[in-house]
């Protein structure tokens, strides 16, 4: 079997005296959706920021396709094919879809000093990509602010895929969305996985995770609680694990098993 796209072992991250991660291990392979579950403060954010090059691990192994790496900046992670789509910071509402799509990686044409963005090409690509997602309003010049949350999230993912990401890190892409929007995003995640990308899907909604995930890694208090394939674990077990077990079970009993 080929080496996993990303594998980390025993990652430890300290911020001064605060221990944010105290030994996390996880891996994601091509064509796999790994769901990273954990309650608030479990260390999900720190972990993905480490994977995407924002933070550097204090100690631990970090391998991309079997080679040890150490990213100094998000740019380096991006160049290695690790793209992160942040929850609400992915797009700039006042700018057009095209401008957002190519932001930071604008294709240029023309001779210096007349180098300029190849707007015709940008518009064409953006329109095609929007079509693939199935966004109904097809004017790539409209401001992103006019799109729904789900559409924005999908375009952000499409952008990462277009620019050659091998691993997608999605930070709670569904947490602020309604039901229809969520299914749109989940469907798109599945589509991306089928293309052979590895997806790391961060969420604290077990239902969403279970819908698209192949593997589940649960974090608690900066540690890996365990990693399970979909066949090994049921949804409510996952839910209990995520909340640290017994407390939620008690609350769940009190509320008549509805949590």
């Amino acid at each position, binding site marked *: 079997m080929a080496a996993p796209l990303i594998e980390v072992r025993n990652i430890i991250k300290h911020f001064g005296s605060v221990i944010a991660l105290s030994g996390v291990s996880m891996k994601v392979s091509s064509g796999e959706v790994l769901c990273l579950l954990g309650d608030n403060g479990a260390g999900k954010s720190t972990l993905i920021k480490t994977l995407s090059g924002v933070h550097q691990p204090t100690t631990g192994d970090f391998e991309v396709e079997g080679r040890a790496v150490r990213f100094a900046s*998000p*740019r380096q992670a*991006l160049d290695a094919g690790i793209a*992160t789509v*942040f929850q609400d*910071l*992915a*797009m*700039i*509402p*006042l*700018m057009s879809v095209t*401008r957002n799509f*190519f*932001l*930071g*990686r*604008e294709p*240029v044409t023309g001779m210096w000093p007349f*180098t*300029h*963005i190849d*707007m015709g090409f940008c518009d*064409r690509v953006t*329109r095609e990509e929007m*079509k693939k997602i199935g966004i*109904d*309003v*097809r*004017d790539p*010049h*409209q*401001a*992103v*602010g*006019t799109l729904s949350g789900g559409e924005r999230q999908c375009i952000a993912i499409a952008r990462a895929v277009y620019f050659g990401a091998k691993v997608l890190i999605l930070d709670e892409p569904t947490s602020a969305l309604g039901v229809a929007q969520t299914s749109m995003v989940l469907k798109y995640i599945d589509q991306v996985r089928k293309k052979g990308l590895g997806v790391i899907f961060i969420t604290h909604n077990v239902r969403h995770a279970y819908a698209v995930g192949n593997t589940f890694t649960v974090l608690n208090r900066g540690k890996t609680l365990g990693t399970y394939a979909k066949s090994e674990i049921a949804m409510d077990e996952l839910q209990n694990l995520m909340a640290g077990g017994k407390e939620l079970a008690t609350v769940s009993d009190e509320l008549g098993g509805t949590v």
Partner: protein
Amino acid sequence: MTTPNPMQDERLQKASLVTVLMRRPELGAIAGLLVVVIFFAFTANPAMFSLSGIMTILNPAAQLGILAVAVALLMIGGEFDLSVGSLVAFTGLLLGVFLVPMGIPIALSIPLTLLAAAVLGAINGQLVIRTRLPSFIVTLAGFFIFRGLSLVGLKWATGGSTQLRGIREAGGDSFLVGLFSGNAFSGLFAWLASVGLIDKFPNGTPKVTGIPVSVIWFVAITALATWILLRTRVGNWIFAAGGDANAARNSGVPVDRVKTGLFMVTAMAAALVALLTVFDAGSTDARRGVQKEFEAIIAAVIGGCLLTGGYGSAIGAAIGAVIFGMVSIGLTYTSFDSDWFLVFLGGMLLVAVLFNNYVRKKVTGER
């Protein structure tokens, strides 16, 4: 039967003309310009719209416009610069000191002045970025510091006078002086007069001998800024930096460098205005550029810039500056007291801000 165009998606909603127009940030400025022109067409002496009248309007409009376009870029990038007016005085003083007491040749003094402005702008930018304070406050400090330095420096350089003279003489007959003062296209205007297309004096010299060079600079800078904003990567980054600096950083935009660059451009625009006014008058004083920082911001806002950044236009700001020049000069062609200017200005600003907010909500679909 029509052949299907591969570029055309049948589901592509044709955006209505109104929507397309509304997306142009300079729409408000154009509407404002129309209102102002119509107002003066009915109230002002027709001399206002003669060639010489228009040149009288354009000269101050151009100087303000150069600042306004730079300030508009900075505002789109999400920052303010309240120190531009004071920088006009300070860089003017630097130029004067380089030329007169220090006797540095003009070909060196001009680049030195621009370089000094760039450094001061970079300091402004770095202060804003490193302290993470609002640029409003940081540059308000600059507003006082540079004005104060201009006053102190002028007295020190002249031995107590409030004016530094002899700059034109120090410039000599270098062609560089002509780049920043006087009129351009005088040959063309002389020819136009000789064939009777424009008014001339009885002796044959045209009443308007050319276009003030400041207007040429103004038009060129507006065109360049517009091209950069709409067609280059840096332009995209400026919109992004002002629209949402975090999202821009996550997308790999060097936000801090873009912002520092914008502060440098603004300061250099102030230095250019200083060059234009100082060579025109042949002297410099510490009162130059007073209130220009506010006028530039007002022109930019009339031109469609949002105070919150991320949206606006260089052409809009240029039109805003023309409206400004038209009203400030135009009132003297009417029977109104020209002090109504300030009332008009405040009213215009208020209307522009309300209009811009409305447009932004339309554009982004905010509710």
